[in-house]
Each structure stands twice: as C-alpha cells, then as structure tokens.
C-alpha cells in the first residue's frame, strides 16, 4: 500500500492545530499551561534546600571561664547558625526545644574552660530537635565543622602538637557546595516532565470523555498520525518552556553552564518523548479526564521521588534502586546535572540517553496500539 504522505501530513497538521487551540484558546487553560512552570521554578528554587541557614540556637552558658565566649563567637560567625537566646538554667532546655524556639541548645557546663586549661580537653553538650531528622543530621554535621575550626585554631594558638596526618579536602564541580547548583538543574527536569506529561495525558482522555475520540478513529486518520499529532504539541511546548527555564537557571540563579547546549537539547527531545509516551499511554488507558489526571499523578510522584531529585539513589535499598531504572527522570537528571556542572560529553552520556529512547519508543508503540484496541 502506498502511503499518502501529503494527506498524512495535512491530517497531522490539522490535529496539531486543534490541540494547540484547545490549550491556548481559553484564557484559564492558557494560564495553567504557561504560568505554573515559572511559579514552580521560583518557589522550588528557593524552598528546596538541605542547607542550614541561620538555624536558631539557644545557649545555656554555665561556664565560669572565657573559652565559651570564643566558641559562641565561632557559632555566630557561621552562616548555618544564629544565636537567638540565652537560657537561665537547665530547666529551660526542655520548653525551648519542645516549643521550637530553637533547633538546638548548646550547653557549656561550669567546668568547661577550666577543664580545657587543665586537661587539654573538654566536653560540649548539645541537644538537637530531632523531629526533622534531616535537619538534625545537618545541624550536627555543621556544628562539628564549627567546632573543628575552633579546635584547629586552639591547637595552633596553644602549640599543641599537630596530628600526624592532615586531610586536604576539595569538592569538584561545585567547589563551594552551592545548594542551588544541585537543585536548580534538577528542577529543569522536573518541570519539563510535569508539563509534557500532563498536556498529553489529558489530551486523549478529554476526547474520550467528550466522545470525539471515536469520531477521530472512524476518520481516515491512522493511529500513528494521531500519535504524532498528539505528541508534537507537547514536545514543542516542553522544548520552549525548558529553554526559558534553562535561561532563568543560568541568569537568575547563577548556575554555571559548562557543557554543550546542543547536547542538552538533543537529550531533552528524548526525555520529553519518553514523558509524552507515558502520558499517551496513561491517556489511552483512561476513559475520563479524572482518571488520566490521577493516573499521571500516580506516575509522577514516585518518578520524582525515585529519580534522585532530592535524595541520592545510592541511599535507597537495593530493591528500590532496581525500580529506578524504569524512571526516565533518573537518566535525564544525570544528563542535565552532568552538562550543567560536569561538562560531560556524548561519550559519557549516551548510555543515559539510550534508555530514554527505549522508554519513549516502547511507550509510544504501546499507546498507538491501545488507541486501536482499547474500546470504551
């Protein structure tokens, strides 16, 4: 059978125009396609942080010497902490932590300075609110950095013999461990996933619900034409929005862009295609928009959590780590962070892009098959 290319092209074009007009004709729909991604970027960019900044510290100082003052000075010099109150006695510790007036209480005992002078070592007690265990972990870690710095100063000033081994630490790709450099490129991936998935997931389901999909099926339009006509609008909108977001990441959030811009675009096409494939599959399986939206949601939430967006995949149990190989965002996060920060090239990234291509083709084929074979 001779394929009718011109006819095919015009049918695809007609479908695309129809999709775009559904998305952009109504004022409210237009807004929810364009507005939320940028609001999300700004809110995410500022709210997603595992860095402690100005965490409130209460001090209980029973020290009769002066060393405690120096330690408090070090604490106030650190950007992680801010001393907010001085407690009168140890009975005040419990309400301070309970009522969240401070994240941690630093307690200098009466013999704090005298023991340091006499024995060369002394103890500092710290009580941390563990209700947010991540924050508690970070507070403990940051506090030990502060105390380390104090210890080094003290050793140097008092000619305590240096330890026989010194550690020189350097952080690669993100020398000052900027939290935004980690999160903002990840948000590019997140928003692109959400936008392209939602647009396509609802497109077929909307027609099913309104009954126009059956009409479409009885026209000469082939399943692959429906597939292309339904995919391209999502791809175009996804590409456009992602580029604007990348620009905001570079110029507003100041994340360095060290790699190849076109390689990122190339990988982005496959990532969006896999999101669209999944979206169309969900759409083809749903009979109502509610099912499509909730289905998209039930895919998206685990996909984001398992992608390594906020917490590393390496920390997850083995069984869950296996599951992450099904998640397109997992691969694209490595690509987007790799290109932004690590200047990774195609030689290092092709085995992230290949799985995306596989996910995209499998899901799209399945969706096209479902269009024909799933009757409502």
């Amino acid at each position, binding site marked *: 059978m001779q394929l009718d290319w011109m006819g095919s092209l015009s049918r695809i074009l007609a479908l695309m125009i129809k999709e775009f007009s559904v998305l952009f004709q109504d004022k409210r*729909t237009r807004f929810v396609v364009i507005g939320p991604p940028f609001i999300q970027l700004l809110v995410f960019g500022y709210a*997603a942080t595992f860095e*402690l900044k100005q965490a409130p510290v209460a001090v209980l100082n029973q020290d009769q010497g002066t060393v405690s003052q120096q330690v408090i000075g070090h604490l106030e010099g650190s950007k992680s902490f801010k001393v907010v109150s001085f407690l009168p006695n140890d009975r005040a510790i419990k309400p301070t932590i309970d009522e969240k007036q401070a994240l941690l209480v630093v307690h200098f005992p009466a013999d704090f300075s005298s023991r*340091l002078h006499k024995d060369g*070592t002394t103890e500092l007690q710290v009580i941390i609110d563990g209700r947010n265990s991540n924050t*508690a972990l970070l507070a403990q870690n940051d506090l030990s950095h502060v105390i380390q710095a104090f210890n080094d100063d003290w050793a140097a000033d008092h000619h305590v013999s240096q330890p*026989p081994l010194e550690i020189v630490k350097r952080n690669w790709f993100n020398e000052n461990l900027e939290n935004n450099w980690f999160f903002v490129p990840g948000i590019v991936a997140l928003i692109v996933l959400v936008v392209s998935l939602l647009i396509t997931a609802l497109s077929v389901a909307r027609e099913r619900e309104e009954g126009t999909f059956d009409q479409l099926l009885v026209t000469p339009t082939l399943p692959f034409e429906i597939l292309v006509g339904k995919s391209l609008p999502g791809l175009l909108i996804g590409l456009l929005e992602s580029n604007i977001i990348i620009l905001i990441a570079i110029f507003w959030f100041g994340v360095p862009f060290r790699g190849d811009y076109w390689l990122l675009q190339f990988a982005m096409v496959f990532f969006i295609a896999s999101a669209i494939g999944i979206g169309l599959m969900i759409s083809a399986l749903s009979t109502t928009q*509610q099912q499509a939206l909730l289905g998209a949601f039930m895919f998206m939430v685990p996909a984001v959590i398992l992608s390594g967006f906020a917490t590393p995949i*390496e*920390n997850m149990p083995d069984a869950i780590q296996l599951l992450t190989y099904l998640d397109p965002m997992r691969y694209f996060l490595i690509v987007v962070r790799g290109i932004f920060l690590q200047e990774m090239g195609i030689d290092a990234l092709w085995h992230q892009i290949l799985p995306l291509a596989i996910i995209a083709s499998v899901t799209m084929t399945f969706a096209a098959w479902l269009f024909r074979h799933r009757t409502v």
Partner: protein
Amino acid sequence: MLNKLARMRIKGLVFKEFLQILRDPSSISIAFVMPVVLLFLFGYGVTLDAKHILLGVVQQDPSAESRDFVSHFEHSEYFSPKSYLTVPDAVQAMQRGEVQGVLVLPSDFVNRFHQPGSAPVQVLINGVNSNTANLINGYVHGVWQTWLTDYLSQKGRTLKTPIQLQPRIWFNSEVNSRHFLVPGLIAIIMTLIGALLTALVVAREWERGTMEALLVTPVTIWEILLSKVFPYFVLGMGGMVLTLVMALFLFEVPLRGSLWILLLSSAVFLWVALSMGILISTVGKSQFVAGQIAILVTFLPAFLLSGFVFDLHSTPAFIQFITHIVPARYFVALLQSQFLAGDIAWVILPNLLALVLMGVVLTLVIIKKSHKRLD
C-alpha cells in the same frame, strides 16, 4: 434545622456520590493505593543519611601505614572503598559517577608520615550533590578521628581534642528519617484527597453541565456542597486512618501525643483542604484547569512549603512569609510534634487555631461565591 425533604435530597445526592466513587477506580486508588505507595517510597526510599558511600582509594606507594589508614575506611559503615592504581583512573571513575569521592595517599606518604609536621592526604569529593558532599566531608573527618585515636593509643598517647561534642538528638535519637517523614505524609495524603480529588469531581459537574442541571432542581447549592463534601470527608479520614495504622504498626513510628488531638486536628485540616478543593473547582470550572490549580496551590505547597521535607528556617524571608498562608504548614508542624514529641500546648494551640481560622475564611468565601451563582 434541616427539614425532612432536605434530608432526603442530601441522602440521595450522597448516595449518588458514593456510587460515583465506587465506579471510578481512580478515586479509590488515590484514597487507598496512593497512601500505600507514598508510605513505601518515603518509608524506604528517601533518606539523606548515606551509608556505604563508594570511595575510590589511590595508594601511590602502598605501605603498612597507608594500609592501616585505608583499613579504617573499610571498617566504617559509611564507606565502601574501592582501589584504583592511579589518580586519573579514580578521578575518571568519579566523573562517571562510579565513586562519590577519591582518597589519595601520595607517594611521599611514608616519608612525610614519620617526619615532624604532617603527611597530607587528599580527598576529592564530587560536589554535584552538595548535600551529600557536605555529609561525606563530615564522615571523612570522623574516620580520620578514629584512626588518629587508634594511632596515638598504640603509641601510648591519648588524643586530646580541645572540645569534644556530645550531641544528643531528642525525639528521634537514631535520626531515623522514617519517623520524621511518615507523620508528615498524612498531610500530603489528605491534601490529595481533600483538595485535588474534590476539585476534580466538582469541576467535572461544571464541565459537563450537570451542576446547572442540579441547580434548577429544588436542591439548594448548600445541599449539593454538603453532599459533595461528606463522601470525600469519609474518604479522607479513611486514607488518614490507613496511613496512621501503617505508620504505627509497619514503620513503628511512635505516637507520643494524644490520638484524639491527632484525629481532631486531622479533621480540621481536612475541612480546610475540602474547602480549598471546592473553591478551586468553582474558579477553574474545567477539570484540566482545576487539576492544574489544585496541584499548584495545594499539593506542591504541602510538599515544599510545609516543612514536610525541607526545613523552613533555611528558606529566604519571602518564602517563609508565603508559608504562613499554606495550611499544610500548620498541620505538618502539629503532626511531627504529636507523633514524636507528645502533647505540647504551645505547638498544638497556635497551629490548630491557624487551621480553624483558615477553614472559617475559606467557608465564608465559598458562601459568598455560591450565593452569586444562585442569582
């Protein structure tokens, strides 16, 4: 007082709503499957606490001393060292993501080790994930300290660290992230059911024109709203109880506060969430728009701006300001405290009051909006 006819009408509508829920698998799954999925993901999948970090090790000139130093990394639960012959090899492995950091013991390690001063050991850490890198820094230092203590004790000396930290973490002494995340999930799940699902369902009535059809019957807008809210309230509390049971018995999160206060505050929060859902649907009027708005103004804030995962203290002032209008913020604070710390009046009262206030304001707005529709 509701008269007999009104009661009958409401009963009929509630029945219809329950039927719709039962017939649509997506409603049931968002109420009962989603909580289970989320519990497993957050209970097992999400933690900042890295263990067995893959660390590349390069001993440029292996010796008894360098091996002794490396063995301390092998014995630490935080690291899984992996040997490389040269620094470029190890660095390449780090770039490919095979190891998170590289420990380099240089060729003059032994010589400098026995000389006064110190032998420098280099640690390179992949800083792309700044949070993990920061923690790895801390763990490396910890291993170094253990090694130092052991080394000095072999020489009959004790290590004198000027200040030794004695940290104690209250409420969650094992720093188990499950105990912190699972209670907060109740807020997320109730937001999904109360706000997202309700917004979709009511928007569907507007989209299909069945709302107008209902409005021309003797049923009042109040009866419609009440009959919409009631089934989803039941569904929401059901999801909450399911989460609670799994939290207590599967994840063994302690519940140190009163169960009744927990249930009461959950009911109040659900009222707020349902009100948001109804308001969104009357503004959105189509399922696509209502769904998107619900995700944007209820789900994402509950996730990001509530203290559920990210600590609010560390966000910029304007974000902290915004969080005050996020209902989930008050509920998450209540939940975390109620589970892990117990009944603390100064946590319960202000947060509960804020939620009640929001519920009242939202209900008033709905009343105002709904009156307009009847005109």
